[in-house]
């Protein structure tokens, strides 16, 4: 055990060995992690898992977000023709939008927000292989059977979070298609979107979801400073960065922020 882990005080010290061994933590351990006030020790434990999986690498990707058909043409025109990146689509009639986007900007790889299993075959036919969505809507099994990869948003509950995290873990163990989890604290539902709660959710997710490769601390949600800090509390992914010219922060800025946070920035593409 390294010296920084050895300094974790008594009430969490016994979890360090289990975390280091990569064991699935039980419900009681997850609850203890969720309930502690000791954010530094949570960070030390979560960072240990993060560095074991990813070293210093912190990923991000160029992204064009489109909500519905009305935004499509304008959005596609707002990025350079050759710009590689991800096209994030949500709204109705997504298969048609995907087809149109692939004609105009073939370098953009589609990811769509999925909320219902019955949409999946048509999306698959349109060439979509990557989905994102909430875990609760029961589409994961259908997505797995069709060969999709998925990113999940975890709606952080107001009370103890262990049960929802363990459900996510069970889902991932059964259908191992989940590449990334993004803890999401809904500001309208919970009046406590604080720096502390955001880092706690990221750290506990990293610790309880040991087999899911990536935990996201998105710069577009957390802002520049908390995103940088989150890269030391379990996050290894800074999320999507707008490809639109003049979008803030841009790709170069995110690279700079990650380097300044002591991480090695890596722009990645899906698929």
């Amino acid at each position, binding site marked *: 055990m390294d010296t920084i882990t050895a300094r974790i005080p008594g009430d969490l010290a016994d979890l360090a060995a289990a975390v280091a061994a990569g064991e699935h933590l039980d419900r009681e351990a997850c609850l203890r992690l969720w309930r502690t006030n000791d954010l530094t020790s949570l960070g030390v434990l979560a960072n240990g898992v993060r560095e074991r999986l990813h070293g210093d690498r912190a990923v991000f990707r160029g992204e064009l977000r489109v909500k519905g058909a009305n935004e499509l043409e304008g959005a596609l025109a707002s990025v350079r023709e050759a710009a590689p990146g991800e096209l994030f689509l949500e709204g109705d009639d997504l298969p048609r939008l995907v087809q149109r986007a692939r004609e105009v900007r073939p370098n953009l790889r589609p990811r769509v927000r999925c909320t219902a299993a019955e949409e999946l075959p048509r999306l698959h036919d349109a060439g979509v292989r990557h989905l994102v969505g909430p875990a609760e809507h029961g589409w994961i099994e259908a997505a797995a059977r069709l060969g999709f990869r998925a990113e999940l948003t975890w709606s952080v509950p107001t009370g103890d979070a262990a049960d929802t995290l363990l459900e996510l873990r069970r889902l991932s163990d059964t259908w191992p298609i989940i590449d990334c989890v993004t803890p999401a604290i809904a500001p309208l539902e919970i009046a406590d979107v*604080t720096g502390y709660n955001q880092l706690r959710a990221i750290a506990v997710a990293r610790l309880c979801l040991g087999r899911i490769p990536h935990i996201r601390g998105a710069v577009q949600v957390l802002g520049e400073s908390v995103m940088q800090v989150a890269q030391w509390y379990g996050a290894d992914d800074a999320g999507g960065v707008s490809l639109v010219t003049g979008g803030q922060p841009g790709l170069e800025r995110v690279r700079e922020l990650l380097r300044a946070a002591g991480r090695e920035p890596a722009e990645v593409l899906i698929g």
Partner: protein
Amino acid sequence: MLPVASRLRFSSGDGMMQSAERSKVQAICDRFYGGGRLTFQDGIDLFHHANLLELSQMADTVRRRKHADPVVTYIVSRNINYTNVCWVRCSFCAFYRPPGSEEGYVLPKEVLFRKIEEMKAAGGIEILIQGGLNPKLKIEYFEDLFRSIKERYGVHIHGLSVSEILYIAHLSHLTVEETIRRLRASGLDTIPGAGGEILSDEVRKVIAPLKDTTDEWLGVMRVAHGLGMRTTATMMYGSVDRIEHRIEHLLRVRDLQDQTGGFTAFIAWNYQPVGTELRGAKTTGFEYLKMTALSRILLDNVDNIQASWVTQGAEIAQLSLRYGANDFGSTMFEENVVRAAGATFCMDETELQRQIRDAGYEPRRRNTYYQHVN
């Protein structure tokens, strides 16, 4: 960026590299946890080679040594900027107006009194009264102002700055000691550490060439402490300074504190560039957490480290409670100086308490001497 070898690795079998930098940090940690005092070079090495969580652990260790109870204090007070007229023209400041400017002001007494009444009605106990170097305001102006505030309201006056005191002394043909004695006799209770900027003349010559030197700043604080007055110390980093300047600043404060014990607290914030002549980029909250931690670790003889939510926002200020800060500053009714340079954060007492509780601490009101008052 940090070299790969400087990162913590989770298990010794995971290839923890014993690089020279890593060994340095390890040696510093050993000395630190053994109760040893850290040096200038230690500060530089920690900034470059320690990782964020190591700094958090070290800073929290000092914090818990000094404040065993999980309490975070704050004060209900009001900033009053009695004038914005200032001839010093610091290139990092967006608040001042030069003498003769149509936008220059000196607050009439009745306006100032109304502000104090509003603050008292909200339970406030302290005014932080600061302005600029206004050639029209000699010591009699301040004596009259402070006396009338004390007579009417009896609130604590935390006021002026080293630059203002030196200028009042100069305008009034008094020594610094006579000036502070007279101001104190008229009601000035404590002096804020504002204007410390970076206590390195190499930096001061660039960002504020007409302002007091490092030795003058420390000299005024020494005199005030010698007269029994308590003051704070501040640091504004991130303009043209390098880390060496910042560590030099911390150690100059520590040296004086060893001699006088007069500093109640230390407050660091980053340069806010909007609207200033100096311009440039703003350092991020990540660096603020590192600087707060280094302040806590190196200033082992200063009791309190204050978070600067006005410049950092609630999220980073709250996180700084795990990087050595034990005080959340003031519930400001107004703040005009850093707001002029782009800081736009705002928090009332309820929100401030919520931030403190959410981080696992009990919020407690304090006075200017950091004694609990509720």
